[in-house]
């Protein structure tokens, strides 16, 4: 398959992720959109790793997954904590801090 297919797919994933982050109000969905963005990048890494015939990109994906996991841990913990305190995690309900 030509590289452009992977690039287009990953760009689409990234764009959907960005839109999700911007438009959605549920932090869990936002969170998933973020993961989508990360994985769009992962796709680029893997695709180019194959294209350039080097392993660096594949390796990088490992690290990205690990950091993503660390972020998941922090993010979920935060959301649980907020949900338990406020019984909602809707971002629109977050109005304590005036912007």
């Amino acid at each position: 398959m030509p590289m452009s297919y992977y690039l287009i797919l990953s760009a689409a994933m990234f764009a959907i992720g960005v839109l999700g982050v911007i438009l959605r109000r549920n932090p869990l969905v936002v969170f998933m959109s973020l993961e989508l963005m990360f994985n769009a990048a992962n796709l680029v890494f893997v695709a180019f790793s194959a294209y350039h015939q080097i392993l660096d990109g594949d390796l990088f994906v490992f690290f990205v997954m690990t950091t993503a996991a660390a972020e998941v841990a922090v993010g979920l913990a935060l959301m649980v904590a907020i949900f338990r305190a406020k019984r909602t995690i809707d971002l629109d309900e977050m109005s304590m801090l005036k912007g």
Partner: protein
Amino acid sequence: MRSDAMNLSDFILTLPIITLLVWALLLLVVDLWVPKGRKGIVAALAALGLAVTMGVTLSQSGGSGLAFQNMIIVDGFAVYLNVLYLVSGLVVVALSHDYLKRMNLERGEFYPLMFFSIAGMMLVTQAYNLIMVFLALEFLSIPLYVLAGLARERPESEESSLKYFLLGTFSSAFVLYGIALIFGATATTSLALIIERVGQGALNLPLFIAGAALMLVGFAFKLAAVPFHEWAPDVYQGAPTPVSSFMAVAVKAAGVAVLLRVFLTAFPSLAAEMAPLGWGIAALTMLIGNLLAIAQTNLKRLLAYSSISHGGYLLMAFVAYGNPQVAGQAVAAMLFYLLAYTLTTFGAWAVVISVEQNDYQGLELDDYAGLGLKYPWLGVAMLVFMLSLTGIPLTMGFWGKLFLFRATVDAGYVELALIGLLSSLISAYYYLRVVVMMFMRSGEPRIRRDGWLSLVAVGSALAVVGLSLLPNQILQMAAQAILSLQ
């Protein structure tokens, strides 16, 4: 496998980071056995750890080298900034010890998390490979997400943490995607190899530019540059105040560091393409940051917007990075400015912490009425910080701005410098409001007396004024620091 997998020199070169991390782990464990009432021991140990690391870092000054298969670089630039981070760490320890106790936030994680974040900053400054850049960025950010939400019983704190988390991760995704594209374009993530490939013309240029632009956007997020600034005031307001100060100073410095490291080392050829983007971001950041600050009555938010605008000043000099004649100047100016900004901002936050009450009140501008009259030392210190942030002579802030503007003018961006100067004028207005409150209104301010806080406030004020008399030495240091960068 590469044959030279690892050797001793790798560890020697990264000794500061290793020291810091080992110390952090020890702190984490030690804290478990320190009884509740005696957490001062942990704070003292944390300070000791930072001091030890500082010693190790300083022992590297003058030297340089690459470690772990060109993943990590040690040079003057890194040493300068590492010292800055470690000083920040020490200051934050001084700021937080009493604060954590009275806010009932004494958690064992605090200092280790801060250590991790500092280690991340050091790594991001020393990263010589985009993989390292991303990892280090995350390494510095993730502990901060937690620190921002440390005051769990306050919904604001958690909100700020969540916001910081979501937007921080968002920006990381931009950086990551940019790295991925650059990897695609050049088949490498090593900064040295990228520039080499660019020199050979062996790359996919549109992809390369897109990648660099995405990275710039991601870094702009970390720097809280307009239009990616919205998180900063909310996060600074919600986070425990010492953490806010840490974010305002050290994180900003790290953002600048990584920006310079990556763009100067790997993308000097893209300066022409990046300049309009950088120009726009810098101009907007300076103007909007300052304009929005005018409306603030909460000191934490005010300082947040102020720090946004200072990011703009720094970016102003960054626009010139591609011009080899001025790049050195610009970077030296930025490094100098960072030092000035660090001293000044920490001082200002120390005053904010002094005035903050145990119920998280005392952050409004009105709470500062009469402060300078009742507590002259604190008031004069805050005056010095406000003047330094405005850029009035006889403060470090003046020199910092002068050097930044000088570099910008030298690079031919006179209009940008003009915007910067006008936004300084705007900033004078709200900085003066604080001064007016403290000295020209009467009130019954209440402050928290704590030796360490006062030490930070007064010490920073003396440093801001004192060092402004001999800016040459610091500028020399900064200039030496950047020699290695180009």
